[in-house]
């Protein structure tokens, strides 16, 4: 068997660009300074659900409004996670574990308050009809919830009728659909037509497996998304007033 030093045939760019600091060291610089809030944010980062609830309880006992902790502590902790994920310092499972801890914390805060917490916006998430591959949808749903959105998760293999009915009923700011196969992704077309026929002009963000930007660009409501991590950014952009044309200008990469 031959063997060689590979230095002249490949470059590990990921190693070249990696930070000298550990994720924990970077996170320490980003957590809120208030000690109670910091404790909660840090436990979200660590994905420690029990510690999240304990930290929240302690903070609420000190007189802080439970609902304010959703944005100021839980979402603040999650923002550190999202920032480090965007920097390439954390992996997706880290985000998912933190998001679960955050969601647990949000539920606790809601239970502790008599007022209603307003999410950033409502989004419908689904896998197209005929397709049971839902790992992409799971990732997108977690990332959206982690960014403060209320996600109506319709699940997998969702009939077009049901997607359209949910859009009429829930009045979301956008829909997020995934498809693995070329043979199922045509369901995007039917959803698009049916929404337009009902005068519902919300962006339908599409991605997954065989889905291409060209394919999605053919539909009036279609916005193609290559990376799951871009979906919350698209949602944020919608809140900032970007229409479908501008979303395509911003997020269509090819």
């Amino acid at each position: 068997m031959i063997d060689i030093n590979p230095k002249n045939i490949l470059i590990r760019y990921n190693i070249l660009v990696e930070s000298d600091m550990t994720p924990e060291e970077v996170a320490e610089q980003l957590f809120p300074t208030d000690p109670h809030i910091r404790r909660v944010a840090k436990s979200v980062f660590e994905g420690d659900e029990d510690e999240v609830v304990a930290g929240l309880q302690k903070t609420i006992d000190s007189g802080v409004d439970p609902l304010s902790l959703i944005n100021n502590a839980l979402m603040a902790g999650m923002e550190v996670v999202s920032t480090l994920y965007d920097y390439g310092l954390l992996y997706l499972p880290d985000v998912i574990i933190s998001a679960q801890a955050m969601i647990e914390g949000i539920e606790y805060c809601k239970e502790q308050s008599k007022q209603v917490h307003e999410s950033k916006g409502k989004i419908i998430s689904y896998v197209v009809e005929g397709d049971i591959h839902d790992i992409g949808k799971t990732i997108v749903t977690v990332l959206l919830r982690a960014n403060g959105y209320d996600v109506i998760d319709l699940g997998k293999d969702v009939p077009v009728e049901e997607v359209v009915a949910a859009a009429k009923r829930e009045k979301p700011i956008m829909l997020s659909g995934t498809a693995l196969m070329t043979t199922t992704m045509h369901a995007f077309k039917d959803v698009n037509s049916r929404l337009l026929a009902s005068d519902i002009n919300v962006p339908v963000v599409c991605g997954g497996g065989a889905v291409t930007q060209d394919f999605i660009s053919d539909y009036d409501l279609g916005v193609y998304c290559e990376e799951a991590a871009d979906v919350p950014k698209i949602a944020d952009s919608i809140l900032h007033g970007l229409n479908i044309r501008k979303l395509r200008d911003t997020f269509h990469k090819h």
Partner: protein
Amino acid sequence: MSVKRYSSMEYDNFEDLLFGHSKYPVKTGLDLEIGAGYTTAEVNYAPRPDAAENKAKLVNEYERITRDIMERMVQVGFPSVVLETEHVQQMTHNPEWGADIATAQKAIMEEYHDEYGIKCALRHTVGDVRGDRESIDLRGDAYSRILESFEQVASSGADMLSIESLGGKEVFDHSILRNDMRGVIFSVGILGALDVEYIWKDICSIAKKNKVVPAGDTACAQANTAMFVAGGLLDFKLSHSVASVVRAISASRSLAAYEAGAIGPGKDCGYENNIIKAITGYPISQEGKGSTCAHSDLMGNMAMQCCDLWSNESVEYRGDFGGTTVQCWGETLSYDCSMMNTALEAGVGKTLRDVLMVSDRYRDPQAFILSYDNAYRIGEIITAHPDDLYLRGKEAGIKACELIESGSEGFLALSKFEKATIKKAQNDLKSLDEDMESFICNCLDTYSSEVETFNASNYGL
């Protein structure tokens, strides 16, 4: 059919692993012999999305695809080709559709074989339609439809039978997104292997009855999911080292098809096939740089190291500058095969194999553990535990961790995060239960409550 557990390697030495050569070549189709001293392109395709509207339209689509490929092969002078028809759902749900398509394809292939003598064979990969929106029912009506589909394509012209089975996917998807190695071992090593064994006993019976080849399964729904989620070097969705460990474990799952009677060639998307070939001696199909029409990976050259069929994974049928897509990719694959076959004719096959392997060996931990020497070492661990699905999955995972760690002391450069994740995976694996009984018992408790679609009765548990 009885199950034969592999307790030793069919290859005595990893140095004997080579493309175009397998210890037990497989004769199939029209004069084709796979692994008998030459490599052959395996062209894989998907119909255009609107072609599946009805049976007539779909049959016509596959006739066009088949004729295009065969025509290009003879136009450029290639001696052999394999066509792989991966069923769209409509074909498996309506077994007569698959049968009519197999009949139509085989008729065209026979025309070309009769006129030009081109060696060729047709693989049909039936869709695993056992999951629906609400649940996964691995042993109910959908299973019967799958078997009926196999029966019909086998009796209508398909030369090789395959499937990419779903067993274990529900627990796997849940586990991999949480870095849960226990769930990975349970879903891939136990649930997946049990399902593969179950389904392949029946497929092998159908193949035997129809005198066609039971060609093997892959862990596409698990190991490839991990590989794709892991992505490229600058992606941080999943540790590549963890994806490598999943791949090693997946070999014990794919092996179950051979233990139930499959003889290969294992399907192209089973990157674990290098391990399978080392264990069983049966030929394999592989995909790499010729499958960038379908996806990107980090071992485009290396995947060729031990292949017997060389595949493009799948390409949607449409026009391109150089012809239709199946013609373009079929031609590219066949030129690759010409290169490998020339090396074999010239007696420098092993040199080319090493060049292909070493060019990617240090690109990524996934490539490193599938380099033929390391693939062989993982095979040795699996065969050391022939009667214990749990131990062979767990020990394969631990071995992959050890290989990656030792590689990182040499030229296999790992980021500090990859180092941390491989250490964690290793510790997690080592801390698992001692024996299969307690492991399964604990996992049933955990995943029955955590994974909505997990139903133990699907696996006979």
